[in-house]
């Protein structure tokens, strides 16, 4: 029973971090209606920014958020403005701009290979940070402190983003664009600027996710790929475009991965996660929290 509780706690903590890595993906999809295949690479860029910020300054990893959030927002904003927007404009009469998806795939390859070129294939981790290897003892149970920080950060971020979309003027403008971009344009909203901002927000959230990962995970050029695949599964589970859905979807995946291996080999949990993914697509394609409306 104690083992079960210990694994459940680890599953929830790790799962909420997975949710955070998927949050940016779901927001970008919600607004732009584009599946961003470069999302894992954005996480990778965030991890390198976070790694260098912490390694060069020696500060507490979470203090690096001050640098990582603006840098990543700007990176996402400019990436959308310079690379993706022209394609969007060329396809503006199409409801689901497929070319943009292909462009994001190109961005993925270019970013991964650029980081390989600049930083080399080495695995980097920050040795002397106050969170590394810290465990919190609860009776006989061990709970990872960096994951606890990650979980709290994920929940705060999700709540913050929700508040922003729900109650601020800019947030409402973004939602308006998301619901009907033509109507939003008629109401005087500059749709491309909203896209830039939404992409910037999604990228900045990847930066926050990167911060939660660096105290216990390695940074390397293809680090995004494994989180990318998980991100897609989580977003579909939770419902495309749903903020709460991303976190809940992440926790579901985390729980399966953490509790499952006590009853079977770890490789089987992967099969269960993918099985669940297919089941959701068959039974409730809009996901657990997705709205049923037609995009």
């Amino acid at each position, binding site marked *: 029973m104690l083992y079960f509780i210990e694994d459940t706690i*680890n599953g929830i903590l*790790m799962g909420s971090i997975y949710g955070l890595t998927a949050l940016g993906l779901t927001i970008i999809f919600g607004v732009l209606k584009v599946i961003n295949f470069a999302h894992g690479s954005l996480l990778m860029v965030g991890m390198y920014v976070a790694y260098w910020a912490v390694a060069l300054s020696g500060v507490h990893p979470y203090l690096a958020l001050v640098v990582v959030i603006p840098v990543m927002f700007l990176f996402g904003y400019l990436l959308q403005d310079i690379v993706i927007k022209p394609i969007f404009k060329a396809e503006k009469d199409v409801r689901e701009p497929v070319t943009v998806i292909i462009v994001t795939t190109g961005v993925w390859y270019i970013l991964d290979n650029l980081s390989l070129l600049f930083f080399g294939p080495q*695995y980097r*981790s920050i040795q002397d940070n106050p969170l590394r290897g810290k465990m919190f003892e609860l009776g006989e149970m061990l709970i990872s402190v960096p994951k606890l920080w990650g979980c709290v950060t994920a929940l705060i971020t999700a709540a913050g983003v929700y508040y922003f979309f729900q109650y601020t003027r800019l947030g409402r403008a973004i939602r308006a664009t998301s619901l009907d971009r033509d109507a939003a344009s008629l109401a005087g909203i500059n749709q491309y600027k909203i896209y830039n901002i939404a992409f910037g927000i999604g990228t900045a959230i990847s930066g926050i996710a990167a911060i939660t990962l660096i105290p216990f*995970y390695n940074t390397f050029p293809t680090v995004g790929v*494994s989180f990318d695949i998980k991100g897609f599964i989580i977003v579909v589970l939770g419902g495309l475009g749903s903020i709460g859905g991303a976190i809940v979807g992440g926790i579901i995946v985390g729980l399966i991965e953490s509790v499952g*291996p006590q009853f079977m*080999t770890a490789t089987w949990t992967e099969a269960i996660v993918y099985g669940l993914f297919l089941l959701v697509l068959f039974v409730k394609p809009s996901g657990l929290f997705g709205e049923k409306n037609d995009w």
Partner: protein
Amino acid sequence: MDKKIFWKRCMSTLAVTVGLTLTLPGAPLLAADKVVKIGNIIPLSGPSATVGEQGKNAREMAVAEINAAGGIASLGGAKLELVYADSESKPEKGVGEAERLINTEKVNVLTGCWNSSVTYPTTAVAERYGVPFLVPVSVADKITEQGFKNVFRIAAKDSWWTRDQFSFIKDMSAEFNTEIKKLAFVYENGDWGQGIAGNWVKLAKAAGYEVVLNEPYPSTTTDLSPVVQKIKRSRPDVLMMVSNAADAILLTNTLAEYRVRLKALISSGGGHADPSFIQAAGKSARYLFDIVEWETDVNKPGAREANEKYKKQYGQNLTGEAVDAYLAMYIIKDALERAASLDPEKIRQALADTQLSDGPGMIVGYDKVVFDEKGQNKEASLVMVQINDIGNGLERITVWPKSARRVGYTPVFPKP
């Protein structure tokens, strides 16, 4: 003959001749001088070119030493001459080049090919022509299982990696008077991990160990704490691992975080031998044992000097592949001395009778070269290293076989 190939061959012959003339200045080859031609089929371009280059450098260093010391005395001071052929890591290329070296270049001995997929068909050509073929290193077991009389392999074969991990456990357990009963196996879920774990299960059964955990994990995993919890709860004495790079670091760190108490951790190269592993895992990696072909600090006479000379000439440390190639030249020299003839059958017989235990070539981790009836060097073994910090930061220190252990180092076993 295709014109292109013809020209390519002309050019490569020319290149070899020019290369030799350049590398042997002041060594006029008089007509009376006997020359022993050694044909080397190695990957000099393509995906394994780096390894091929290391093998080429090591061969050249050994041959220069042998020739400078007077060549082969029993053949009237005959000099060794190296002839290269590029396999490009392609089996068909290796086979073609073997035909050329035997028929056109009239080589006396062949060596190569590093890539097991090339060595396997190429040795068949040598067998057909009855030309002795010495394989420094190509690990596939099947190479010496073909029933060939002319094929000899120096390095340990694939299945011996796991064999040596178990010999190591047994030897350490005896040396440090520590009982080892329960083993846990954790490995990446690919061909490589599954293959090794399959051997482990058989070896553990034969040696009477209890296997308390046999757990594959997906190699793209992002969280290994569930697996580490399973290791902790199964309470093994020794944990054996097969990992790629990212998961090796994650596994090592997570084991330290969850304070898993083990007498020893034994890994199988791969990710645990990655140059960035020690740096990224940091002190969590301390006391880990890893298996390798060779390490620069092996305690063998001449090993340090050979490494320094090689590093000075080629700017890199010797590697397992280079050391095997270096040794191959000395084995050929030893066999030629005893054969005292260039008759292929006599050279083959001399190779089969090899009992080499000293000399400049013996800088490998084991003590002797003796070929069994299949042509496999039955004395070959791998080397175990321990990662520890003895004042110079974390480094890999040779601990096993005991005769190769770094001078003055006592392995930390069991793990504190």
